[in-house]
């Protein structure tokens, strides 16, 4: 593969050969999926590609944004995430509230209980040790970061183990599902959600300004002559990613009937593999429930989350190649190895307990009006604080 002489907006060299490979892979796989399953699966795959491009070109990471805030109170990433939550809620609440007759969709509504509390906390620690969350792990792995490949591998292992223990965790108890939309109607629910997000936003701004002189803006203008080059080759301001992710999440809802999710696929892949090599899953009661059982006993290409994850990885790889940033050189130390392995396991185990990751539980949960999403947010953030400290202790980061 040779580098073309084209320079990207941030002065990297476009990898034309790698770009061509990813384009062929994406086009080819979408046609294969359409022909052997259904056009809807191909659409979900391409929506996944869109997610990957948005995430990579803006380097939109929950993990990095939270770590910046914890270490230095830089709230730029956190505020972008709050905007994403608000915009997605605006798009989802009317749909889930039944405004559009004939549109059938389900929100991400899950029980509020110990499983979410503990799972999200473990996930939060895993975010900082593993170097990424659900979406972050996939798009950085798609970019070709080998350490994130390792995180993903153990993410899958952790999620699979988590699925085998799930019944035990749910016996600890919960208060049931609490849907603001069902309880109060979509308009009051949206107002309540906005109130919560506004409180978080003002708190983030207050803490940022108290520590730092200037608040870095999320909505950074892009000169007109740079819009097209930046759109194609990166680098995106965070608000472009906020818009893109919200739109693609809406397309997911309209196509699949549910919000964007990521980590169900990991436990599915791991359980399929374990079962294929002779592992006994007969006592894993989670996989006897309707949706998981159907997914386990069907082609992985029929699983919405799986095809979207495949798309996300390839979309991120394409974006990285366009930006001249595919497969960067990696430096792995012993501590780094340990961190990604433990982090990956915590990510997977925690996500399975907590009904999802930052995407399936946090973003989908809050934008579906589910209270479990808010519990996930608080618990995971506390986990991130712990994880950020551990990074310093084991030498991955300098003290703060």
């Amino acid at each position, binding site marked *: 593969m040779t580098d073309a002489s084209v320079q990207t907006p941030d002065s990297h060299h476009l990898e034309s050969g790698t770009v061509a490979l990813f384009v062929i892979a994406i086009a080819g796989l979408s046609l294969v999926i359409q022909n052997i399953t259904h056009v809807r699966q191909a659409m979900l795959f391409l929506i996944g590609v869109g997610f990957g491009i948005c995430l990579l070109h803006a380097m939109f990471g929950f993990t990095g944004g939270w770590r910046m805030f914890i270490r230095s109170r830089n709230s730029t990433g956190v505020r972008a995430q709050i905007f994403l939550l608000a915009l997605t809620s605006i798009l989802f609440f009317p749909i889930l509230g039944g405004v559009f007759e004939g549109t059938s969709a389900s929100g991400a509504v899950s029980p509020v209980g110990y499983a979410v509390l503990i799972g999200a906390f473990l996930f939060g620690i895993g975010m900082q040790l593993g170097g990424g969350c659900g979406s972050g792990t996939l798009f950085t792995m798609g970019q070709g970061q080998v350490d994130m490949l390792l995180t993903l591998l153990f993410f899958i292992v952790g999620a699979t183990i988590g699925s085998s223990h799930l019944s035990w965790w749910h016996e600890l108890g919960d208060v049931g599902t609490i849907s603001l939309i069902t309880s109060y109607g979509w308009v009051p629910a949206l107002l309540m959600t906005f109130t919560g997000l506004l409180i978080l936003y003002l708190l983030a701004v207050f803490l940022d300004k108290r520590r730092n002189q200037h608040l870095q803006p999320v909505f950074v203008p892009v000169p007109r002559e740079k819009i097209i080059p930046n759109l194609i080759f990166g680098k995106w301001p965070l608000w472009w990613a906020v818009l893109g992710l919200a739109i693609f999440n809406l397309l997911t809802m309209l196509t699949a009937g549910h919000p964007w999710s990521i980590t169900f696929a990991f436990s599915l892949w791991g359980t399929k593999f374990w079962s294929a090599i002779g592992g006994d899953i007969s006592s894993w009661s989670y996989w006897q429930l309707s949706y998981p059982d159907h997914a386990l006993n069907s082609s992985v290409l029929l699983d919405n*989350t799986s095809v979207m994850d495949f798309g996300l990885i390839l979309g991120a790889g394409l974006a990285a190649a366009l930006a001249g940033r595919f497969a960067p050189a990696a430096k792995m130390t012993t501590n780094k190895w340990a961190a990604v392995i433990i982090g990956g396991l915590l990510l997977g185990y925690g996500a399975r307990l907590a009904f999802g990751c930052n995407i399936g539980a946090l973003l989908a949960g809050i934008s579906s009006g589910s209270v479990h999403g808010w519990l996930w947010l608080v618990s995971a953030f506390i986990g991130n604080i712990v994880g950020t400290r551990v990074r310093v202790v084991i030498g991955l980061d300098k003290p703060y």
Partner: protein
Amino acid sequence: MKHKTSKVIMGATLSLAAIAVAIDHTQHKLPEADTVSSEEQQDIMESGTPCGLGAAPCSLGEDDALDD
């Protein structure tokens, strides 16, 4: 780890993943093409979302629960 090594590892990984997907796909019989849109879609729409318990990935279905 050099850039070229990273590329090789990623290429090998994606290739292995593609083979695994192909093997998994051939292990399962697909529903008839003309019924996928109706039966599959109805199943998904009624069952909810990916990340939750049973009913669908991200939510808890009322008719599914982990009872022991």
